[in-house]
């Protein structure tokens, strides 16, 4: 009986050891452990970096939610004592927010479409429709990337003044439609690199099937360069949204009928008091707060947050566009 139990225990231990040391089980466990540590590392790393990015932003958001009277209350460090959206309301008034938002959105959208059209066409021509001298032309594209806008803006301004386009939003549209908008050169470069990366067989099979050059571009190549489209569209939109330089040079937002967010923001940053006074926000709040320089700085910070916010919300939807590439049908890899 005793030996039986002993044998039994021994056998079960052996069985267990066998099970543990069985190569397939070991391999599986190893793989699991690797995956676990991999994802642990990934989370720690990404959360750390996200924290670095978010830290100043969170600070500012919490500042924005303080009641105006609490701005330099030393007892309040992180969590506001009295929650309030008064600062946001005031900033919105100072920025003429909804009006400026609509204008900025409209302009950024039109510029995005124009930039996409002009740069995608040029990028395709540089990568797939090679001709004698196209490399030399491409050197000029590099030049357009490298030359700082300051070097050209004076002469461009004189140009637009002759065409009496200064002070109109169409000057910006002309620039981007002709592939000379904000960083159009880098967009052409991006498109060229993407189109170059597409297999030649795609183009050839389209050609053999009798598609014209334009059809090949539109129906075959462009859908395959979706990643580039999303990226370029996103950058064109964001950079136009944030642009203060060209808008200022061409005096687009100088008239009060066409306020733009960035110009309003610069006005607010330079002179908060006047901006609040003219927008009528002054009557909304007690006079004593105005002696407080911190409060004025706070309003300009909140205004900056308000400008970023729509972009961030939009990006949350757009980032789905960064999906896996479309399966390349028609080619057996």
């Amino acid at each position: 009986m005793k030996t039986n139990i002993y044998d039994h225990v021994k056998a079960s231990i052996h069985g267990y050891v066998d099970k543990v040391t069985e190569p397939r089980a070991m391999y599986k466990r190893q793989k699991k452990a690797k995956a676990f540590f991999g994802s642990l590392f990934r989370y720690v790393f990404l959360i750390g970096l996200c924290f670095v990015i978010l830290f100043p932003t969170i600070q500012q958001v919490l500042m924005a939610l303080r009641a105006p009277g609490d701005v330099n209350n030393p007892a309040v460090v992180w969590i506001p004592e009295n929650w309030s959206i008064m600062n946001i309301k005031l900033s919105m008034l100072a920025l003429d927010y909804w009006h400026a938002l609509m204008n900025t959105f409209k302009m950024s959208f039109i510029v995005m479409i124009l930039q996409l059209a002009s740069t995608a066409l040029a990028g395709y021509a540089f990568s797939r429709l090679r001709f004698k001298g196209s490399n030399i032309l491409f050197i000029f594209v590099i030049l357009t990337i490298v030359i700082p806008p300051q070097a050209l803006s004076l002469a461009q301004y004189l140009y637009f003044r002759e065409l009496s386009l200064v002070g109109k939003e169409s000057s910006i549209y002309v620039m981007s439609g002709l592939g000379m908008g904000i960083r159009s050169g880098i967009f052409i470069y991006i498109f060229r690199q993407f189109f170059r990366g597409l297999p030649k067989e795609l183009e050839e099979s389209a050609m053999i099937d009798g598609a014209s050059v334009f059809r090949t571009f539109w129906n075959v190549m462009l859908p395959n360069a979706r990643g580039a489209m999303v990226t370029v569209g996103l950058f064109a939109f964001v950079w136009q949204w944030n642009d203060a330089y060209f808008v200022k040079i061409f005096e687009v937002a100088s008239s009060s009928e066409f306020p733009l967010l960035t110009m309003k923001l610069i006005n607010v940053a330079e002179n908060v008091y006047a901006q609040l006074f003219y927008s009528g926000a002054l009557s909304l709040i007690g006079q004593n707060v105005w002696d407080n320089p911190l409060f004025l700085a706070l309003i300009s910070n909140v205004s900056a947050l308000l400008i970023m916010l729509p972009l961030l919300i939009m990006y949350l939807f757009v980032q789905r566009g960064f999906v896996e590439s479309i399966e390349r049908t028609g080619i057996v890899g």
Partner: protein
Amino acid sequence: MMESNTKDMILKPSKKDGKKRFEISYKNQKRIWAAIFLAPWVIGFLLLFLVPLIRSLIYSFYDLVPQAGSIQQTFIGFQNYANAINEHVTSTSSFRVELINTTVDSLINLPVLLIFSLFIAVLLNMKFRGRAAVRAIFFIPVILNSAAVATALGGGDAISQILEQSGIDRIFDLEFYLIQTGLTPAIVSFIVGLISRIYDILALAGVPILLFLASIQSVPKHLYEAAKIEGATSYEMFWLITLPNVSPHIVTVTVYALVDTFLTSSVSTIISDELRLQHWGLSSAMAWIYVGTILVMLGSLAVLAKGLKIGGSHYEN
């Protein structure tokens, strides 16, 4: 119409339905379409770029003095260039110092930036919970990287002073801890410098990360599938599939990062300031020195890339 045009690869006159018409070879069709595709860019280039460019080049050799109703021009040769390099000073710095600093900085930052952003892009391309949120957070620096927003946030100096007083501007004093551990001061200052750069690098990396992300996602999926079936590890897949396919875009990112570093640097600010002070000749000369520096850097990087065989697309030819 179209069909017969394209099928006819060889240039030959063809008669169909007894009607004579032009048959354009596919090659010629391509040329015509290339001209059409490039037309907007070429027009823009000639009118909005080349003419201003030549004007600015001419300005750089002149002393321009604004007079009532006109601009007085006097030719002074390379005087503006000499002034920019030798004599120009601002209240805190000078053009030459800033130019050298920016050049050195960008050369140090560039490799770090490239490796870092590629690494982040690979991480963000994996599937994990909260990916959308993390991607959105990494997008914040791209938005913040704007002159208008920076001006407005710069007004917050008073706020950061207050935060400093309450002692929460820094989570912990890294330098202090590192010295406590008994490391040599040189290593400590290197580590601290690197860490204080993290935010700068993150701010610059926003666009490169997105560019890499898009390029990683354009890698054909069947390559990964085949590799998986052959039993490749994800490490091998990165080196043998992702990296070669992404390498053409490394060149794009390099060009972007270099130009962006210069564009957001103090060199660019000095040029704008001089422009605002109506020193048109001087600011043009500075702009040309700046362009020359970048072009030399890009040229040497291009030679380097060719030597290392980075950037060629394997689908080409």
